[in-house]
């Protein structure tokens, strides 16, 4: 089973990398971008076919290591 964990910075947390990317987009002449926040995507393959179990496992993984919940939020999507 394929799954995806998306980790994003909580709002209010300063994101120097996002700001730099924002500046790069502007210098490329790509108008209309008002802000950029950088995050991470983990594409994960899960053994077995139990969706609920997979979701629980990935939540545990996200809480334990994939995200630092002091500054980051995460989302778990079991893609099937």
């Amino acid at each position, binding site marked *: 089973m394929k799954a995806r964990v998306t980790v994003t910075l909580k709002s209010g947390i*300063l994101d120097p*990398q996002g700001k730099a990317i924002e500046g790069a987009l502007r210098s490329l002449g790509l108008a209309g971008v008002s802000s950029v926040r950088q995050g991470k995507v983990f594409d994960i393959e899960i053994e077995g076919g139990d969706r609920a179990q997979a979701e629980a496992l990935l939540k545990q993984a996200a809480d334990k*290591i994939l995200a630092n919940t*002091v500054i980051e939020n995460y989302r778990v999507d079991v893609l099937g």
Partner: protein
Amino acid sequence: MKAAVLVFPGINRERDMARTLRLISGHEPTMVWHTDTDLPSGTDLVVIPGGFSYGDYLRCGAIAARSPVMDAVRGYAAKGGLVLAVCNGFQIACEAGLLPGVLMRNERLKFICRDIFLRVERSDTAFTRGYNAGQVIRVPTAHGEGNYIADADTIARLEGEGRVIFRYVAPDGARDPAFNVNGSTNAIAGIINDRGNVLGMMPHPENHVEAAIGPTDGRGLFAGLVEALDRAA
């Protein structure tokens, strides 16, 4: 002093740290591998040194913080044992939950490798008894992710409880945004936990201890620790 220096793959400041501990305490520290599940018996100081554990993959310190030896360190710290966490060590200590907050990418995105000035905010801790409160020390720093942040409540608590131990300042000790090299909240460079037995700091006091090399402002931290441990013994 029976110091234990933790070693993770990708750490590169453990020898500097061991050399300084040996020089100032007169005792050889024990190097402890990250897969060990126990600290050497009688350990009275654990040092988490600087470097790039696990190549800074995922987040700085994130993977090292979950290694077996860190369970032992958490247990040791919970019993009041002294822990000094420098640079990557500070990042590891935060990720391991030994200290609050996070070290984010430097505000101006550049890796900073040069001497900076710190104001010692308190001299009544085991780590800073070798200094005077308000003293300004010059120590090297070398990091890309040293921008300390935490939620507003945590910052208020740290400030209110006097747990900010070092701050980035101008050479005369004044707060100045130009000298807050990485953009840390309130120019925070080092903090202690609520019990006062775990110190995390980004700069490297262990690299300024020998007159033959340069300033010796880092000595006070280690000499103070030796004194604190002697008194406790």
